[in-house]
């Protein structure tokens, strides 16, 4: 099996190189056969990488410890779902997994463009093959997943216990899917630049890919946050750790991109900006992999310190320099006749939203690499922690939520002050009303007051939009309100799906603000039978229970939670002692309600004194962060849903020029 895997990877590298040659030669000689052969070669690459993945999975599932990878990241007693997840638990496997996704996405892109974009596609495939060659080169020569051990150990050293968790099984694949699928729009952008076909054809062709990427980046970030919340046992979900930042930055830039391409589709503006954004998004995904794999910046995540840093850095520099040069060489082809007319226009709202998103991404980037910069410039390593990120991003987040409330209601091109007053009356009233209510409830932090007002304002905007659409349908086609709502979303899925996402963002934002400002924490050591209070809850410690399996020891504490004298929950936080990498871990007990989460950690048990130490957090509204994430995901599914009108728009864009006016207007505004 290992031999098959190794061989498959070598063949995959060869066919990838061949596909580039065939594409180049095919374009020069104008030979359809060669171009087709290049595409088949990339399908073969996908098949070969699939074989390699199957071989590694076989090794993991059959506990073949002659494989160094299996011996390092698995064990006989590891539960089967984590044996599967161990594919991305270590460096070689995760790079293989990455390459696998890339080869699958390349194959899908080939299939989608079998009759479309005949000029751009060969170049896009060359770019995708180039990226694949880098990763395959690493897998073949630098960090090989199928290396064998001289002496076969009886058991493996097991997957890191922190990774043996449900969320960890799904977080990396989601994030990787988001990372890797950004390569497709990037490749088509390169193709458009090289062939000078710089209308919005490439954007429409890859729009679904960009949204797909955004969807998985959103999920990946959310799952990661959820994992941190459930596993790390510190009561929080986001620590601005470099690796978290690495996942967050592409999400920010991709969000900016998805908004600004709408301006190009509508108004043929911001072409350079869009090309720059998709370039940045792709580079940030590479930067993310570089950060996790290089050990340049210390992080709780970089378990795999390795010599990959220089390779990734070189590749990253090649991509950055190459793409920037390409973009500059085409600047004259990217001039746009249209320009901004008024601050009171949707274009302006989108432009400022873009600046904020990219600004946040830049601040996160700066804070992440600050230790490296300060060491290079001043010889001292200076770090900035969560306070830095919160101070910078807090105000910018307010700006974004404000623009989210403004953007959907404001007209393209320009809006008269009178219309503005009329449109914004309801949302502004909601925003101010919410501020007053919260103030009357006794909250005085200016940030929280502003944040909740703006959240209500943005919510009001979405509500107004839905109400307007529904009442229009009721009057024009005489539908019942429920029917009108369903049809409204179904017929304009791109627009109303977007609003559902906005709703999710507002919920998540409120969850984040409330949980950051109002979390309370109690740390206490108690004996059996003793109680302590947190908020309105009285927590009583009843005792310990130990369970031992071949894989781990599970020591759980039993607690009863009372509120107002009534028993409302029993909670069992635990300490887990893994046997293979002799390492303790924490299993948190969480009682979640829409109002607040009660979060209990068994921090330690002292054998001498019989004291059990608990760390208890009461976090208000954090539920809404997860609910908002779910809503964002659902909204994205609505946006991605196949749509007849959009297919027509794509066909029109690709057959452009004469078909320009035939482009239907979504949403009917």
């Amino acid at each position: 099996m290992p031999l098959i895997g190794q061989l498959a990877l070598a063949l995959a590298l060869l066919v990838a190189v061949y596909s580039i040659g065939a594409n180049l030669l095919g374009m020069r000689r104008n030979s359809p056969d060669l171009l087709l052969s290049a595409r088949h070669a990339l399908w073969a690459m996908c098949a070969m990488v699939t074989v390699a993945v199957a071989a590694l999975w076989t090794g993991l599932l059959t506990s073949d410890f002659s494989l160094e990878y299996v011996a390092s990241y698995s064990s006989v007693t590891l539960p089967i779902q984590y044996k599967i997840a161990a594919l991305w638990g270590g460096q070689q496997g995760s790079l293989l997994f990455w390459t696998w996704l890339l080869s699958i996405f390349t194959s899908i892109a080939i299939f989608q463009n079998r009759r479309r974009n005949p000029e751009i596609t060969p170049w896009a495939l060359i770019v995708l093959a180039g990226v694949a060659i880098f990763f395959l080169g690493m897998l073949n020569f630098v960090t090989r997943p199928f290396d064998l051990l001289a002496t076969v150990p009886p058991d493996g050293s097991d997957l890191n216990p922190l990774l043996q968790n449900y969320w960890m099984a799904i977080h990396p694949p989601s994030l990787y899917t988001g990372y890797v699928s950004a390569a497709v729009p990037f490749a088509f952008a390169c193709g458009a630049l090289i062939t000078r076909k710089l209308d919005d054809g490439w954007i429409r062709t890859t729009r679904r890919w960009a949204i797909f990427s955004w969807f998985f980046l959103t999920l990946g970030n959310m799952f990661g946050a959820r994992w941190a919340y459930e596993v790390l046992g510190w009561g929080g979900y986001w620590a601005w750790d470099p690796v978290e930042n690495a996942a967050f930055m592409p999400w920010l830039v991709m969000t900016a991109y998805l908004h600004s391409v709408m301006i190009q589709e509508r108004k043929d503006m911001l072409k350079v900006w869009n090309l720059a954004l998709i370039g940045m998004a792709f580079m940030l995904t590479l930067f993310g992999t570089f950060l996790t794999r290089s050990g340049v910046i210390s992080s709780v995540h970089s378990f795999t310190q390795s010599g990959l840093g220089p390779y990734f850095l070189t590749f990253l520099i090649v991509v950055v320099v190459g793409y920037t040069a390409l973009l500059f060489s085409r600047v004259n082809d990217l001039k746009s006749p249209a320009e901004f007319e008024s601050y009171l226009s949707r274009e302006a709202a989108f432009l400022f939203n873009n600046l904020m998103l990219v600004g946040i991404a830049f601040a996160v980037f700066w804070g992440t690499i600050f230790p490296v910069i300060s060491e290079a410039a001043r010889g001292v390593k200076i770090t900035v922690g969560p306070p830095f990120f919160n101070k910078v991003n807090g105000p910018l987040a307010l700006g974004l939520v404000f623009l989210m409330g403004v953007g959907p209601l404001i007209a393209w091109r320009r809006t008269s002050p009178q219309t503005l007053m009329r449109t914004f009356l309801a949302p502004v009233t909601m925003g101010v009303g919410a501020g007053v209510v919260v103030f009357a409830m006794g909250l005085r932090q200016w940030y929280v007051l502003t944040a909740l007002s703006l959240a209500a304002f943005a919510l009001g905007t979405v509500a107004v939009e839905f109400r307007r659409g529904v009442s229009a349908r009721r009057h024009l086609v005489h539908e019942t309100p429920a029917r009108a709502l369903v049809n409204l979303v179904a017929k304009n899925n791109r627009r109303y799906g977007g609003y559902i996402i906005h709703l999710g963002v507002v919920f998540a934002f409120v969850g984040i603000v409330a949980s950051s400002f109002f979390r309370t924490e109690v740390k206490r050591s108690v004996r059996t039978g003793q109680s302590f209070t947190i908020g309105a809850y009285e927590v009583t410690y009843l005792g310990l229970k130990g369970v031992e399996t071949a894989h781990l020891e599970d020591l759980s504490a039993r607690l009863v939670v009372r509120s107002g004298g009534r028993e409302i929950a029993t909670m069992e936080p635990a300490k887990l002692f893994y046997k293979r990498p002799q390492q303790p871990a924490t299993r948190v007990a969480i009682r979640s309600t829409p109002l607040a989460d009660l979060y209990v950690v068994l921090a330690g048990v002292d054998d001498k004194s019989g004291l059990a130490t608990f760390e208890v957090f009461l976090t208000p509204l954090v539920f809404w962060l997860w609910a908002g994430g779910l809503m964002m995901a659902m909204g994205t599914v609505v946006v991605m849903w196949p749509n007849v009108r959009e297919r027509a728009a794509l066909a029109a864009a690709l057959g452009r020029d004469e078909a320009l006016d035939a482009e239907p207007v979504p949403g009917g505004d």
Partner: protein
Amino acid sequence: MPSKLRFAVGAGLIVLAIGYLITTAVRNTSEYYLTVNEVGARQAHLTGQMLRVAGRVKAGTISWDPATLTLGFAMVSPPNPDGSPLKPVTAADPAEFRVVARGEPKPDMFAAGRDVIVEGRLASDGTIEARQVLTSCPSKYIPKKAK
């Protein structure tokens, strides 16, 4: 043209505001990230400041009181900095600092000989009053390769 200019001004203002936020936040929130030996070499200069210090827990120095959640230990430089990001410093004596963390549970992975990162303030008596003690993951056992 004037509309282009107006937008350039608007965009410029936003960029300036972001730049201002970043520079002030860096000034107000940055901390030195040092090794035990580096702190030892510049102790006088660093007293009273917030620091992040990387070092190793010295065996036989750990005291832990679960009732008051007080953890005390001595922190030294790892004896063999090979392969670790820590740089040796020219100070003559290997530095050692007493660390006290109050009100925090003992981290899961805390033990003698472990590498830790301590975030806290350097008091004038040379004790680091820690706000947080982070344990690094133990380096993985790396099996020998077949050749």
